[in-house]
């Protein structure tokens, strides 16, 4: 047997040991183990190999951990302050009622409450079957849709974008018309990112524009970073940095749109890119 290129039978037996075989496959292998001494011997060998590995790896845990590593972690500085991203302006409510206004509102509420109470008291309450059967609001929010799109397209090589980077005018017209957001295509070459093109899709029921960049790494690093924007401000949206499904998200809002940087969770500079984009887009 060549250990580095296992035979199909060895692969099947190895997967069987890990419970990865389906019912039919498991049945076949169990039959094989009863009738074929060579398969039985291979099966035993694989289990023995797993035991040797387990024993050796367990022993590795007994090695003392260098104290300087522990100290380095314990004394490591806490995360630097998050980059301050632009926030949507908060509406100013200068609500300072005078005494007559206060008593006027109290009286109006009393009269409305009394009126409603009278009407409810004089009419039989009929249950509303529609209300009872109304489906509950979906927990899935627009960020899930953004992440799903990112995970779907970020691994594409030939179909990464809908409109390629060369057609700048087409991108600007297509996304501005459909999302209602005016934007510029930021030059992020200083962050090692090359513009690849753009894409339009729907997330949370609203049109979303996406500008797609790729790392210009000499070794072909496959990191794809996307700037996403939409005109609407989805409910509960705020500036956030989070990781969902191994995908990093940095979101911020402006008075005109909601923006988001999407990238692999391992990319350490998403917040820096977001800060740059906020000034350039």
């Amino acid at each position, binding site marked *: 047997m060549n250990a580095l290129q296992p035979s199909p039978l060895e692969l099947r037996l190895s997967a069987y040991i890990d419970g990865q075989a389906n019912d039919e496959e498991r049945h076949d292998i169990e039959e094989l183990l009863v009738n074929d001494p060579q398969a039985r011997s291979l099966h035993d060998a694989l289990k023995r190999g797993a035991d040797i590995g387990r024993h050796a790896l367990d022993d590795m*845990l007994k090695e003392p951990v260098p104290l300087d*590593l522990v100290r380095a972690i314990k004394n490591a500085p806490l995360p630097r302050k998050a980059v301050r991203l632009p926030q949507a302006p908060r509406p100013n409510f200068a609500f300072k009622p005078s005494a007559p206004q206060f008593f006027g509102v109290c009286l109006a509420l009393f009269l409305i409450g009394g009126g409603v109470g009278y009407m409810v008291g004089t009419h039989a309450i009929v249950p509303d079957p529609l209300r009872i059967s109304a489906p509950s609001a979906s927990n899935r929010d627009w960020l899930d849709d953004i992440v799903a799109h990112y995970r779907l397209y970020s691994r594409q090589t030939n179909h990464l974008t809908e409109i390629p980077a060369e057609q700048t005018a087409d991108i600007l017209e297509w996304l501005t018309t459909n999302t209602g957001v005016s934007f510029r295509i930021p030059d992020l070459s200083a962050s090692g990112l090359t513009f690849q093109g753009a894409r339009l899709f729907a997330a949370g029921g609203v049109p979303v524009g996406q500008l797609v960049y790729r790392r210009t790494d000499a070794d072909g690093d496959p990191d794809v970073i996307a700037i996403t924007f939409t005109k609407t401000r989805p409910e509960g949206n705020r500036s956030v940095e*989070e990781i969902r499904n191994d995908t990093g998200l940095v979101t911020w809002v402006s008075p005109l749109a909601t923006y988001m940087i999407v990238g692999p969770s391992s990319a350490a500079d998403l917040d820096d890119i977001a800060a740059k984009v906020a000034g350039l887009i």
Partner: protein
Amino acid sequence: MNQPSPTTDIRRDLVALLPRLRRFALTLAGNGGEADELVREATARAIQKSHHWRGEGRIENWLFSLIRTTWTDELKKRRRNDREAALQPDPDSRRASGPVLSLPEGLASAILLTDIEGFTYTEAAAILGITTELLSTRLCAARLSLVAAGSETSERRA
């Protein structure tokens, strides 16, 4: 397994998991010195990015992924610095000790993540950035190599 809340100081979790993180780093780097540097770099990254961790799933998935991506970055950096050396790796650069660390590259991590750390094939493949088919092949190859090495040792002793 640990499922810390996002407000928990990640440094405590890192210290608690340190022996396991170091063992994983050893399977990647092959020797203690490089493994310690790798863990130092990856844990620093984890602390810097800890506000991204929302406490969903196993923190080990995230930490092992960070260690692997840090190691990949390190290898790329080395290749950039010395392309020739990377094409012809120094045989002494991986001072292997013990049956697992002397396995060909990639096999030790596969067997650690699945047989010891208990990750599914899909999770382990995602951590290592490879397909589940390749993970399955590496795992099988690791078991066969270990049993072959065990037999050779027994024969030599005999």
